[in-house]
Every structure is written in structure tokens, then in C-alpha cells.
């Protein structure tokens, strides 16, 4: 029975899909039906041959002595051959070798085996190998059990050959017991809609969209602003390329907007998201009335890339005299101000004030400490480093120096974090250009106050710092302008976070599954993170992160179907009472829910599994008081039979074995 007979091909589904890329209404129901059919098919086959005398083949590997030097493999074979249901038990020097595998597939055909056990090394090495061999013999690969008698037996009990032999026998008996109730399973295949939704049209979003399109994947790119490019549009030259930020965004925006595979919606927002990997249903809405034109579009996409970006930290009114003195500005405001300036000018005037000295303050809104800084309206401190401000400040200091060579520059920092490629040069060059550095401790940040009236000729503002470079001396630095090195804070997307069940870290940014194992994936399959939605990054890092997200989506779309493992929960409708304890316990939103259905002419509530969202954790199985829910491949009856198998009297020893006594 091939899976193609039960699950329609991608093409067939495409044929049903409306030209606009939306799924026909009946498709949803159909999909659920197909999942159910895929699961039923295996059971039907099992039921057809219900209670047959099982024919189980057991293969025991010598592993060239690794096992057989300790375990008496011949005795193991003789003993397990006596277990009811076992018709074949053979020993081979290397079962994993080609002749060994051939022996298995041959026996399945010639001896009509319907279950197979291999006792050898760890399943990590060869479980897939033997599933393949079993499939080549024409058997369902999930009617196979792997027993590890090398790492867990011969290597672990080197000095106890008799004990090791007994353990090997019991472990095989357990596997035979489990197989007794095994059912053929099929990978769950769901149609994969070869289209991605990219939320956010900044640097990362544009890069991800362009990368995906270049692999032949169509993209819907939704941006709430009126143009592509995000924050970069407002900045001038950026490090380390020293090119205009607009050049970078313009290059990508041009590519994205001229790409027939990318549909760009500007001033639109994502309003609704539901569904699962391969089959997300999304609704996008225009932020402005479109004069009769459709202002809401629904679409089906296979993957969603979150490129929702960051917000610049905006200091509170009065924080370092921000919004109190006109010449206290944030770093992005300063970058905008610098864009119009011409190199080599003699006089720098800002908001009507002649600026002779400028102070740059690092870590404003970043690296905040409990007891020193004031939490935000959510009670949160930005304890993290914003990663980009140090180099930006030094780069802007140098730009200021180039344009107005006579302006004095004073830099107040904790640690200079010019970590990236080419970034240390900014620090070196700033020092050479005469930037004066003051180093403060995080516990004692510098203070900004208006200069006392008698000294205003030196500058309207005075920065006071306890400078550790001069061994803690308290210094007062009169300046005309203060630039606050503001960092990044998380983007504001509470509705999406809520609807898509996304996790955020303590820092408020979107949280990946694991920074190294699955760095751009979230707990919801098919949703990927790109760029500063995940945390502060510079331009190249954002571009790389977007590429990393795109490659995961591309890999997912390389397959015609979304293939999910068959180890998902299944409800026995005859036992389920619909009391929903399983639903309460389920940690995966949407994987289990209660539906009304007709049973014996009565409409009753019953639990229903969405195989697309179930991860097979088994939490539901543990709480059901009626044993009405089971995990395919690891059913309760299989567990019990396995334990019985391990614990039962061994054949040929003491009394006659009664290996399987349940039911």
C-alpha cells in the first residue's frame, strides 16, 4: 500500500486551489478527512488480518565479536525462538552489512514474516538502516523494533557474560511483546502550499523574500509602512561598508518590487493567522480604505517568516534632559541631522545653537541594571546589549569629525564593543581623531544637567561622570550637545504573538527554539525568524539571519508534501466521553480540541486530534481516565506488552512462559 493511494498528490491539490492561491472552502474539511484516512488505512490492514498467528523474525548481531564476546548470542537465539509468535531467530556476524540486510528482506518474502526485531547496536546508528531493509522485503517499516544489545548490554556488562545474556534475552522479549500490538503506520503527508508569507518589509524581510523567490518560491510580503526599507531609510552612511543605507535598501527594494513572484503589500497588516505548517490560513487587511477595492485578502501559505524588526529605544522625557533641552538627541536623530552636513565646514549649528563640543553617551536604554535604571511601563528592564550602538557612535563621531574638524567629541562608555569585522578600526581611528573617552561603571552612569548660569559660556550642558580611566575621578564636561546612544527594543506585535502562539524571551524579542540547534525556528513548525525581530543585529547579521530563515523555508518547500512522523495521538471515539482533560493538558495549541459529533444518533462532544499540530508528546495519554487516547507507535497496550515481555518467566526456564497475559 503506497501512500500515494491515500493521500492525493500536491498537483491534485493545486488543481483544487483557486487561482488567487486560496484554498477552496471544502478543502479544509477534505484535509482533515485525508489525515483520518491515512491513519485508518493502517488500522484497516491490521484489522483485516486480526489475530493471525504472528510470524516474527528476530535477528541477533555478533557485531564482529563486540556483542558475541560477551553475550552468548546462540543461546539468545535458541531462547527467543521459544517465545510464542517468533518463527525465526538467526545470528549473523554483521546484520548491518549488505548480506545481513538481504537475509532479512529475503526471510520476509520467503517465510512470510510480518514483524521483525533486530538486536544489535544503538538505534541511533542503524534503526533507519533496518527499517529500510524491512521495507525492501515488502513489510511496513513500522512493524520493526530495534534492540540495543551492544551499548546497553555487551559494552555495559563486559564482566558479567551470563547477566548480559539474560538481559539481551529479556530486552528482545520486550520488543517482541511490543510488536505484538504494533500497527502498520504511514508517514502523515499533508499538502504543502509552496508560498511564503513574509511579515515585514525591512532589510531582513526584503532579503528573505528575495532569497526565496530566487529559489522559485512565491512570496507574499506584507509591510505596514508605506515603503520598503524599514529603519534604514532614515539613516545616512552605515558601517562597515560606509555606503549610504538607502543604497542597500534601494537595491533590495528594487529587486523585490520588480519580482513577479513577490507580491508586495504596503500599508497592509496581517490580521489573522491560523492553521499549521504547509497550510497556514492568513488574512491581510489594508490599513487605509481602498475606495471600493478589496481591502481584505485571505491566502494560504506554507511558511511564515517573521521579519517584524525592532523599535529604537526612545528615552523618557527628562532622561538625560531628553525633550527638556533641544540639543539632547537620540543616535538616530543625530544620524538624520548629519546627513545634510557638508565635509570640512567650520561651524556646526543645531537647533539654533552653535555646537563646539558634543558628548556621546553609550548604553542609553541598554545594559540596564536593577536598582539603577527605571523599568519600562511593563516593569521590564532592558538588560541586554543592543550590539550596534558602540560602532555606530564611533562611526558617527568620525563622520562628525570629518565634517566639523573643530568640534570637540567626548565619548562616555562602559565597554567599547567594536567586535565585528572592520569595526575595531573605528575605535582606533576615533582615538587618533582626538575623541576623548571616559569610562563609567554601569552602577554609576553619567549625569546630564544644564550648566550653571555663571558658566554657560563653556556650553549649555554639563556631563558629570565618575571616570574609571582616571581611577574614579569625578569629572565635569561642558558640552553644547548630547547624543544618547539609544539601542533597540522589541517590535510591537502583540496581536501576532498572541494569534501565532509565539514565545518571547525575557528581553521581549521573539524567542527561537534553541540558539544553536534551531536558531531561526520557533516552537510552531513552519514559522521562522529573520533579523532583529529576534534580537539586536547589525546589517550583515540581519542579512545572514534572513538567509538562514529562507533556507529553512526552501528546504521545507523542496518536498512536495509536508511529511510528519506518524507518532501522533489518536482518539478512541467509543471510549471518549469528551470531558476534555486531554485538551487541558495539551501544550500545543490546536493539536487537540473538543468537537460535537454524532455517535449512535446522539450529538456528543468528543476529543479530536489535529495531526498537523500534534507532536506526539503523550501528555494527553497520561491524563485520560478512560484510556480513550493513545499515541500511535507507542500505544498503552504496546507498553504493557513490552513490560510483560521483559518481566515474564523466560521460556525454557522454570515454569512455562506466559509472556503476554494482558487482555
Amino acid at each position, binding site marked *: 500500500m503506497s501512500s500515494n493511494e491515500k493521500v492525493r498528490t500536491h498537483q491534485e491539490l493545486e488543481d483544487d486551489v483557486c487561482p488567487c492561491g486560496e484554498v477552496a472552502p471544502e478543502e479544509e474539511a477534505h484535509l482533515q478527512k485525508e489525515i483520518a484516512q491515512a491513519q485508518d488505512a493502517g488500522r484497516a490492514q491490521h484489522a483485516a488480518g486480526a489475530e493471525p498467528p504472528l510470524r516474527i523474525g528476530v535477528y541477533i548481531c555478533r557485531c*564482529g565479536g563486540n556483542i558475541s564476546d560477551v553475550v552468548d548470542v546462540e543461546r539468545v537465539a535458541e531462547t527467543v525462538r521459544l517465545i510464542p509468535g517468533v518463527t525465526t531467530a538467526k545470528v549473523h556476524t554483521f546484520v548491518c552489512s549488505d548480506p545481513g540486510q538481504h537475509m532479512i528482506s529475503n526471510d520476509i518474502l520467503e517465510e512470510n514474516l510480518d514483524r521483525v526485531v533486530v538486536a544489535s547496536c544503538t538505534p541511533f546508528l542503524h534503526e533507519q538502516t533496518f527499517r529500510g531493509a524491512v521495507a525492501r522485503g515488502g513489510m511496513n517499516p513500522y512493524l520493526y523494533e530495534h534492540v540495543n544489545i551492544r551499548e546497553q548490554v555487551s559494552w555495559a556488562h563486559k564482566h558479567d557474560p551470563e547477566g548480559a545474556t539474560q538481559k539481551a534475552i529479556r530486552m528482545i522479549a520486550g520488543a517482541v511483546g511490543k510488536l505484538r500490538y504494533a500497527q502498520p503506520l504511514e508517514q502523515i503527508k499533508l499538502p504543502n502550499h509552496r508560498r511564503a508569507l513574509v511579515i515585514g518589509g525591512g532589510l531582513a524581510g526584503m532579503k528573505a523574500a528575495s532569497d526565496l523567490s530566487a529559489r522559485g518560491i512565491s512570496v507574499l510580503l506584507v509591510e505596514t509602512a508605506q515603503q520598503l526599507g524599514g529603519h534604514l531609510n532614515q539613516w545616512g552612511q552605515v558601517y562597515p561598508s560606509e555606503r549610504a543605507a538607502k543604497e*542597500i535598501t534601494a537595491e533590495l527594494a528594487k529587486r523585490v518590487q520588480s519580482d513577479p513572484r513577490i507580491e508586495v503589500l504596503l500599508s497592509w497588516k496581517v490580521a489573522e493567522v491560523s492553521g499549521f505548517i504547509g497550510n497556514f490560513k492568513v488574512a491581510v487587511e489594508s490599513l487605509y480604505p481602498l475606495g471600493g477595492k478589496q481591502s481584505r485578502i485571505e491566502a494560504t501559505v506554507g511558511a511564515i517568516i517573521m521579519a517584524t524588526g525592532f523599535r529604537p529605544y526612545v528615552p523618557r522625557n527628562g532622561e538625560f534632559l531628553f525633550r527638556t533641552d533641544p540639543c539632547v538627541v537620540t543616535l538616530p536623530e543625530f544620524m538624520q541631522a548629519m546627513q545634510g552636513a557638508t565635509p570640512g565646514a567650520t561651524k556646526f549649528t543645531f537647533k539654533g545653537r552653535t555646537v563646539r563640543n558634543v558628548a556621546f553617551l553609550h548604553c542609553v536604554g541598554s545594559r540596564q541594571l536593577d536598582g539603577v535604571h527605571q523599568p519600562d511601563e511593563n516593569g521590564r528592564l532592558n538588560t*541586554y546589549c543592543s550590539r550596534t550602538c558602540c560602532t555606530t557612535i564611533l562611526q558617527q563621531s568620525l563622520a562628525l569629525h570629518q565634517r566639523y574638524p573643530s568640534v570637540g567629541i567626548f565619548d562616555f562608555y562602559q*565597554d567599547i*564593543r567594536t567586535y*565585528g569585522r572592520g569595526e575595531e578600526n573605528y575605535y582606533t581611528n576615533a582615538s587618533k581623531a582626538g575623541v576623548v573617552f571616559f569610562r563609567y561603571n554601569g552602577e554609576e552612569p553619567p549625569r546630564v544637567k544644564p550648566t550653571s548660569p555663571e558658566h554657560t559660556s563653556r556650553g549649555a550642558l554639563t556631563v558629570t561622570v565618575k571616570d574609571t580611566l582616571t581611577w574614579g575621578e569625578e569629572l565635569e564636561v561642558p558640552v553644547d550637545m548630547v547624543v544618547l546612544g539609544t539601542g533597540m527594543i522589541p517590535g510591537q506585535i502583540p496581536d501576532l504573538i498572541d494569534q501565532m502562539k509565539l514565545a518571547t524571551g525575557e528581553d521581549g524579542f521573539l524567542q527561537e527554539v534553541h540558539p544553536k540547534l534551531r536558531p531561526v525556528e520557533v516552537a510552531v513548525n513552519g514559522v521562522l525568524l529573520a533579523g532583529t525581530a529576534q534580537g539586536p543585529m547589525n546589517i550583515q*547579521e540581519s542579512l*545572514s539571519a534572513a538567509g538562514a530563515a529562507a533556507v529553512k523555508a526552501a528546504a521545507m518547500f523542496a518536498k512536495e508534501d509536508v511529511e510528519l512522523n506518524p507518532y501522533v495521538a489518536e482518539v478512541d471515539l467509543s471510549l471518549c466521553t469528551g470531558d476534555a482533560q486531554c485538551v487541558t493538558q495539551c501544550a500545543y495549541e490546536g493539536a487537540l480540541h473538543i468537537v460535537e459529533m454524532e455517535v449512535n444518533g446522539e450529538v456528543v462532544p468528543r476529543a479530536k486530534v489535529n495531526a498537523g499540530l500534534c507532536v506526539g508528546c503523550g501528555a494527553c495519554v497520561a491524563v485520560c481516565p478512560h484510556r480513550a487516547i493513545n499515541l500511535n507507535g507507542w500505544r498503552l497496550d504496546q507498553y504493557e506488552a513490552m513490560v510483560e515481555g521483559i518481566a515474564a518467566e523466560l521460556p525454557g526456564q522454570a515454569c512455562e512462559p506466559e509472556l503476554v497475559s494482558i487482555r
Partner: protein
Amino acid sequence: MNTHVTSDFRPDAVVIGGGIAGLQSALDLADQDLQVLLVERQSSIGGHMISLSKVYPTLDCASCITTPKMSAAAHHPNITILTNTEVEGVDTCDEKHSVRLLQKPTYVNFDKCIGCRLCEYACDTEVPDPFEEGLGAVRAIAVPFTNAIPQKAVLNAEACGTCGTCARVCPTGAIEYDQQPRRLTIRTDAIIVASGFNLNSLNIKPQYNAQHSSNIISPLTLERLLAPHGPYGRVLRPSDGKIPGSIAFVQCAGSRDESIGVSYCSRVCCMYAIKQSMLLSGALPLADITIYYMDIRAFGKGYEQFFQNAKAMGINFVRGKVARIDPITDGDLSLHVETTEDADNPLQERRHDLVVLAQGMIPGWQPSTITQVASASDGFVATPMLTAPTATTVPGIFVAGTAAGPKDIVDTIAEAGAAAMQASQYLHQKRAEVLVA
């Protein structure tokens, strides 16, 4: 694991280097149904990462992160792995690349070897174990390390006395003393350079006197001392096996220093020093641990919080530059420090019994000498494209990880994915053009 390669094999892409960058790139290409040849010069894939103890900021065991990726690559139907293989050159003509490979002899037939280690147990020749940074010993024929992939024995020809013991005990007759080097040329459309890093010499700053004391160690040596399966199973100092009571980390001992030709920041040293300090204070609760630093660069996600935790744990952070290290009595070391923390006493002499020098990261391989790929002024592979940070100067050749400059594991893994994306779209477009033409 597929390790059979002949010159008529035409993979879609060749990945040079089997460290974490190369593994991630290979997996991300192979998952898109592209055929990948992964070339590694060592006897196992895994790179530097597989030898680390735990990794920041999550303090996961490094093996627990690396081995699943190693295993996934080894079992992937689209990935072929050649270990013990060096790239002798890449000839690029008309955007087609010929990769010239040298497969060094292992003197073990990998088709027959089952990794049972009977040869290793029987061999009585021992040499310093490179995996343990020379601290432990390894037999002249051995599986490179416990979780090496492939799990195949490799014979160290320089150390082997050809006594024949290994051949006698091998249950599969896998030992081949007469194995010869093999050269082959692989044609491909795309290459990802993931050739990683080296550390500059422990002796690069002679004033630190590392050559005069075995208690001045590399951070990679400390990784092995901290690893649960390391050479001693606990932290002992190399000279006399003493449990160290006072440990110093000297930061920027091979970076941010124009006098040694490495003006850039090596980007990982602050964080691994903090991590190693934390692990040390777990292993040696009574030890004093001091980090001498210029700037603490804890810039990544969760890194600043990690740094603050270390401060709260009682790790001493001393801002200052270590001018000189002198070996003194009993194997201990005297550090001459200029610090900004003590106004009355800026020039100090401090005594420690173990010193870790934060060596700088330098390129692990120079492709510019044998390929058309250009290097930048810092010696690492140049990446000139504004919106494609993993593209090199040669179309179809991409770069990932520390081959393009120092970076940590998190950033390396992201960049490896980006390089795979860039390579796959290059292949896709190139083939679309062929179809049109």
C-alpha cells in the same frame, strides 16, 4: 554514511570544512535535495566545536549540540563525506569549478572497519592525543575520539612500528599497511568555503613567557580540562597535577594588538573566558578566578545577562592590561598588571598558579593561495557584496563561519544557513539559464 567518491561524481556543491559551519551549510543544501560533497582534512568531522566542553550562553554540552548535526550529515542521503582529505586547489573556469583533492592514507579500509576498536586496545604504541590538546595519550591506531564520525580507526604512520598486532586482531581484515595517497578532481558548480580558524601562537607575545611555563595554557586546552570526558576527568594544572587555586584569564593576548599584526577583535574570547570562569567555579569552588580585560564584549543575545551573572557569582573582572608574565617558584606565575581599578596602586604584581591566554583567531586556511578567492586585509576571505554577506570575489564560491572572520557558534550557524541559501539560489538560477538556453 556515504564515503565512496570517484572523479566522475558531480555534486551540486562542495563544502570545504566539516566543522560546525560546514556541517550546517551541507545540511541546509542537502535538505533542498542538492547533492553535497563535504571535505574534511581531519579524521573526523566536528571541527573545533566537538572538542569544547560547554558552550555559551546556554551552557549546553558542546557534544550535545554538535553530534546531532554530525550524525545528521553522516546519515543524509544527499551528503557524501570525505575525511582525511585536503583541498590542493580549485581551478575555476567559466564559472565551473574543479576541486583537486588529496585523500591521505588512513591505512584502514573504511568499508571493512566496523569501529570496534580491537586494534586500538591491542596497539602498544602511544602518542600525545591531539584531541586532548596533547594532555592525554592515544594509541598509534585509534578511532580519533569517542564520538568521532566516521567511527573508523586511523593509523598514525609516523608513530606506527608496523608490528602487525592491529592486523592480527582486526576481525574484518581492515588494516592495509600499503594504502597509498589518492588524488581526485571533483567538478562542481558551487563551493562553500567553511575552512574555519586557527589560534595564533601561545608564544606570539614573548613577554608572556608561555614557552617557559606549561601552566600558561591555551583556552582550547582549558576546554579539554573542563570537559567531563577530558584527559584527567577534572581540572589539574599541567606542570605538576596540582588543583589550581588561583586562575587568571589574560584577554586580548593575541588580538586588538597592532604590535603582533592582529588589530581586530577575535570576538569570542570575552564570552568563552566568562563561560570557562563559570565552569571553573563549579569544578573548583574554592578557586579565585580573575579576568584581566580591556572591554568586555558581551554583545550577543543573552550575553550581557551571562556576564552579569558571572559578576554576581564572584568572578573578578579587572580592567587592565597584563604587561608581562614571569614564571616564579613552584610553577606559579607573576603577572605585571597595569589596572585602572586602584588609584593608589595602578601597577601591580599578582600571583596565579594557572594562566589562560586569550589567543587570537586567525584564518585556518588560505584559499587565496590556491584558488581565485581573494582575502581581505585581515587575512580572512573577502566578502565584497553589499547585500550578500556570504559571497566571495568568485561567482559560485561562498564562505561561511570563521573563514570570513572571527565569530561565535551562534553567528556561525546563521551565516552557514545564509551561505547555503546563497549557493542554492546561485545553482537554481544557473540551471534555469541552462534550461532557457
